[in-house]
């Protein structure tokens, strides 16, 4: 188990290997990791390991290293004690016995007094106010309040070193204390880092590997730090070097250290480092926006047309990939946009993580039936994975483009359709997707929206009920009118029948017929009409 008080960085030996000069003699103040001590011993003919009197002694020391328990204050007063290389890789807090009240600035004076003019001074300083602590219960300001000379920003550290006559040439921001997943980013590189660029991707990878629970997702934390030029404040510590210059970026791939350098902002990143690890990485990575950043910009601009076009091109790019058997998981935060083309960028995770399960017999899109209800192809599954991850990462940021109540699953299905995945395949993949965990704030917002939706549906039901009542009343009214008309008709027919059956009517009818004798033409017409109708009736009967 590493001592939590001792910051060990997997990347530190690689960084020191690039920056430490070969010298006659060197001081190492405080016990570093064995790798660092071994490296210093290689670069210096005589190395003295200075420990406070209460510090533990190492079990084993390299041959050229001398161990000395001494009070720094006594040593700093001697002119012959100066050396061309002085390292304080554990910081200045361990230089004096525990509980010593000497302020940090005075300790720096003591260290500076041990370094020859023009010599190389390497110091470590823990960041007492890392931004990540805000998501883990807040920042503990006690050390800074107790000793106001302690640096709380990388710029404070630079100013303090300049004051003691050793201006800083490089500050490397260290991420991932006591972790195999670690990274170091030079301050100049951090200053020109954009959201989604390689250093941001590396730092996010390290932050995401931190097992400590946090209320702020790593992607959000790093993006905020990068965009507000606060990447140095997100670091767990700073390693300053007065004299010498390292690479821009170091990180670990499966425990091996890889570095990247960039000539100027916008230029390609050139990768190198451990031969085995570097062999599986591209030699150059473009310093362009990631697909995720590009898509987020379209969401922010409300430019659905460009978003849709990009999604369509991504679908085509994945399907027409040179290797249709490719099963590695796709992530839009790794794929980069180079002009109108896509570049895979680099994947920081290990090979076996994020493997997309292969679908036997359906690697090629051409295998699909015209209206295929067959299983989705591997490329469709990779697209589904990429869009699902994108939906998770941008949750809460899509308001203005798609309805608030759209969940990750609905957004993923929509984006898959934009990428040219058939509705059948989308439906099949949707049913196999498990419901992801939601962020608490997003979940609370969604609950509020759902409550409002329930209220809306209730209002709608009330309105529909009212409409139904009006229509039913209308139907009842029409039915009553129809029934009334029918009753009236029956009544009228009955009365007509009664009238025709009455003696008065029959008598009047007799008089009417008798009166026709006085008008023979009318009588003849009437008889002819009656006769014709009788004849027609007989014909119809045939």
């Amino acid at each position, binding site marked *: 188990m590493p001592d939590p008080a001792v910051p060990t960085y997997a990347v530190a030996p690689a960084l020191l290997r690039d920056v430490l000069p070969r010298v006659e003699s060197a001081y190492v103040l405080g016990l570093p990791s064995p790798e660092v001590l071994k490296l210093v011993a290689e670069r210096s003919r005589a190395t003295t390991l200075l420990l406070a009197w209460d510090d533990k002694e190492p079990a084993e020391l390299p041959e050229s290293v001398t161990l000395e328990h001494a009070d720094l204050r006594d040593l700093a007063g001697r002119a012959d004690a100066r050396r061309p290389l002085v390292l304080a890789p554990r910081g200045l807090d361990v230089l004096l016995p525990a509980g010593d009240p000497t302020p940090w600035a005075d300790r720096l004076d003591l260290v500076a007094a041990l370094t020859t003019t023009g010599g190389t001074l390497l110091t470590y300083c823990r960041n007492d106010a890392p931004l990540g602590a805000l998501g883990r219960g807040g920042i503990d300001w006690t050390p800074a309040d107790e000793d106001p000379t302690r640096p709380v920003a990388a710029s404070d550290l630079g100013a303090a070193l300049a004051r003691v006559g050793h201006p800083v040439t490089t500050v490397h921001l260290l991420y991932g204390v006591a972790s195999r997943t670690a990274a170091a980013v030079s301050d100049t590189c951090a200053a020109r880092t954009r959201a989604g660029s390689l250093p941001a991707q590396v730092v996010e990878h390290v932050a995401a590997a931190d097992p400590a629970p946090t209320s702020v997702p790593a992607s959000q934390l790093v993006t905020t730090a990068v965009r507000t030029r606060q990447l140095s404040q997100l670091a767990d510590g700073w390693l300053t070097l007065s004299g010498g210059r390292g690479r821009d970026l170091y990180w670990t791939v499966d425990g091996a250290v890889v570095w990247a350098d960039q000539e100027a902002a916008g230029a390609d990143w050139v990768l190198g480092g451990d031969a085995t690890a570097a062999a599986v990485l591209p030699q150059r990575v473009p310093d362009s926006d990631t697909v995720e950043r590009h898509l987020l910009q379209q969401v922010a*601009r*409300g*430019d*659905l*047309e460009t978003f*849709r076009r990009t999604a369509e091109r991504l679908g085509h790019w994945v399907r027409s990939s040179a290797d249709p058997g490719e099963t590695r998981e796709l992530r839009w935060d790794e794929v980069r946009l180079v002009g109108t083309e896509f570049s895979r960028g680099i994947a920081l995770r290990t090979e076996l993580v994020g493997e997309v399960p292969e679908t036997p017999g359906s690697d090629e899109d051409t295998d699909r039936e015209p209206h295929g209800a067959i299983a989705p192809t591997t490329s469709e599954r990779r697209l589904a994975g990429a869009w699902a991850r994108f939906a998770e990462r941008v949750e809460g940021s899509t*308001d*203005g*483009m*798609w*309805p*608030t*109540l759209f969940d990750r*699953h*609905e957004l993923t*299905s*929509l984006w898959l*359709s*934009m990428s040219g995945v058939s*509705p059948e395949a989308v439906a099949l993949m*949707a*049913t196999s997707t498990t419901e992801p965990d939601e962020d608490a704030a997003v979940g609370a*917002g969604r609950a*509020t*929206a*759902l*409550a*409002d*939706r*329930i*209220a*809306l*549906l209730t*209002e*709608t039901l009330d*309105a529909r009920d009212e409409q139904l009542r009006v229509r039913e009343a209308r139907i009842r009214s029409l039915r009553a009118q129809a029934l009334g008309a029918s009753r009236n008709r029956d009544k009228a027919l009955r009365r007509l029948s009664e009238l025709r059956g009455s003696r008065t009517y029959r008598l009047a009818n007799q008089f009417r017929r008798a009166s026709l004798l006085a008008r023979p033409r009318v009588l003849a017409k009437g008889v002819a009409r009656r006769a014709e109708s009788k004849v027609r009736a007989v014909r119809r009967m045939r």
Partner: protein
Amino acid sequence: MHPHNRYYGQNQVLAVYVGDIDRFSPPSIPGHLQHDWDLVHDCSDATRLGPGRTAYLWSGAAARRRSARGGSGQVVIGAPWLYLLELDLEEMPRPAPDPEDDPTAAEVTVAPAGTLWLPRHDLRGEHAARRLAAEIVERETGPVTVALSHRDHAVPQLRQAYLDTGLSVVTLGEREDEGGTDDPRYLLRLLELMRAHRSVASNTLDALVLYAAAAGLSAQVYGDAPDGPSAAHRDEAAVRGSSTSATLNDIADRELGRRHLMPSAELSAVLEWSPRA
């Protein structure tokens, strides 16, 4: 679910465009569908929507204005008018033909002719109408049909002001039609009316003029504008009196959201008309 969604038959247009939906009774829309140009007739209901309701807007410009007013939960889908222009009008619900009608009569097509005038009146009503009628007679050389809103058409004096100068007068009809009927809705009636003419004119720049420009008709704005402030005064100043339509077409594309039209499956999903898993 908002009663405004039935205005102008916009929901029916969207239902026909999406397809596979009962065209006579389109499903509810879970929010508020923009039914007029917000710069000219802003609907306060669209701003007061709850968090679970979506404001379906015509254009990105409308979305930016709504955001600036503090609105959220909006989705830009493009104006239903543009979806109507994409449709084959035969797909739109219509009454079944009367069997007693002459079947050959429907096949007779009349070439578009004349100008469709869409006046807007303020409180000066009849007086403004008479001035407009005089100006129309003075400027227009061909036949003119004056299409009045149902409210204006209900005022005999207003109708008479145009009839007295020899202009034909028709009504655009109610904006809210009886649900479930097969009568042509407002937008369809308007489109057919516009397509029966060669050009459209109005005394103010409003949604109808944008509709005409989007439908490819020559549109002009001239005559006394109705009183009252208009948030679209900059756009109106740019097109007033101009006979070139490029500017007007640009405004129509921008405000009706031509870039934001969605494929039918996507529109169905966004309107929450697709079955939810």
